[in-house]
């Protein structure tokens, strides 16, 4: 895979010009590699990682376990696709174990999330049951620690 891909997977917080510098290529090359990754459906896009503990909008997040009767043709895929298309849904995964789909959703209030589950999700034909768990507090988000950061290291400026 290309050099940009490697940098992205390492999670280095670099912008395009820094990536160019690190890889020793031009910014245009970096953009071309990003486009290549987008076209291949590997790199989907940039999104900010926000601290959910201080977010005001869409402050409520929940995880929903969904049980489904799979269809003869297509299994769970059609349901998963249909559920994923809701704006409220952040991510949706097929799981092994006691339920079928794990759905992460957000909403501006508890009522709105509850209404989404009871009116939109559980009414879909083929969905057997849902169990909703509201997130109370987050400790780590997308690899970022939210509680206690490593303090400024105190590394001396010059050492042998």
């Amino acid at each position, binding site marked *: 895979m290309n050099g940009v891909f490697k940098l992205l997977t*390492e999670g*280095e917080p*670099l912008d395009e010009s*820094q990536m160019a*510098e*690190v890889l*020793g290529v031009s910014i245009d090359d970096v953009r071309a590699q990003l486009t290549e990754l987008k076209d291949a459906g590997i790199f989907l896009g940039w999104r900010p990682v926000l601290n959910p503990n201080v977010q005001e909008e869409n402050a409520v997040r929940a995880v929903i376990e969904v049980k489904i009767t799979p269809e003869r043709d297509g299994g769970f895929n059609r349901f998963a696709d249909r559920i994923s298309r809701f704006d409220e849904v952040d991510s949706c995964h097929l799981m092994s174990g006691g339920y079928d789909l794990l759905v992460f959703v957000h909403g501006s209030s508890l009522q709105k999330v509850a209404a989404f589950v009871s009116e939109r999700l559980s009414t879909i034909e083929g969905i057997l049951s849902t169990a909703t768990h509201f997130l109370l507090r987050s400790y780590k988000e997308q690899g970022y620690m939210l509680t206690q950061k*490593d303090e400024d*290291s105190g*590394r*001396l*400026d*010059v*050492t*042998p």
Partner: protein
Amino acid sequence: MEPEVKRFVADHVVELPKSGIRDFFELVAKMDDVISLGIGEPDFVTPWHIREAAIYALEKGKTYYTSNLGLIELRRAISSYVEKHMGVTYRPEDEILVTVGVSEALDLALRAIINPGDKVMYHQPCYVSYHPTVQLTHGIGVPIPTVASDRFGLDPEKVKSAWEPGCKVLLLNLPCNPTGGVTEKKKLEEIARFAVEKDLLVISDEIYAELTFEGVHTSMAALPGMRDRTIFLHGCSKAFAMTGFRIGYACAPAELIEAMMKVHQYSMMCAPILSQEAACEALLRGDESVKMMRDKYARRREVIVRRLNAAGLECHRPGGAFYAFPSVKSSGLSDDEFAMWLLKEEKVAVVPGSAFGLGGEGFVRCSFATSYDSLIVACDKIEMFMERLSQKS
């Protein structure tokens, strides 16, 4: 008036020069917002699983002395790690000694080996403590030059021509701080044969072994005929980003370890137990963390070498460690002047090469154990600095 208090200080300590790095540190410490490429330790915090092991040990009340040699569990871990990565086998029971950093291990090795007047061969430029440690043991240093055209690797011919009667020890540090120099296996074999011929004991400080960027690291101790005349020194500081834990170790034939242990037991007793517990975790389960960090250093190496050369400072690609060692000749300044002016004008700290002994003058050490952000900004500033210099001249 009372005579100076200094009269109490031993003569050979009075004569001992202060590390050049210390002067420079004092200067940098007084300034704000300095981007430092002068740091001789990883910029990564110790991987969490290793820190967690130290916390767990503390929770379990591990607050005692350990055996003088170090925890047997750690010595077993060292034994299998060294066997796996260096290809040499040492018995955990009596051929391994855990020390407070490699610095202590080196001090112990020299104190256990050197009689007053014995000669110690070492390559220059080299780590700041080598020559002073030899002096403190009343030995005589015999420097072997390494040069930029060899990428500061050790040339067997130069080893041979530096040799003189009375040489007892050959002290090596490959990959090398400050030059990043490494030496290919063929040349090491030739040096090993010479060591056998002249009956030299080799003290091999391989603290940067894991940070080798081209091919695999060859340990001196693994070469034919060398195991029984080598004191292999290694530790956790660089590869596992554990400098503050202060864990080093020495592996050697039992008689040599026994001699070093005598000095160690009367001076240090043992390395701190929490650090030893953390080191166990690092050696047994730290390989992936090491690989991640090495990959990052490798890429930063490319960035800094390319940028320094582009700025007009001739810089070889270091084969290991995390230091670029460019020549500042093109600036028309001495290494001291270069470092001082760069600090004053651009607030970028690099270490003058002359702090690392003869052959270091005219070079500066730039550590790339620094985040991309800082590295790129520092390189931009060095470039501007060089441009301004060329306009002046």
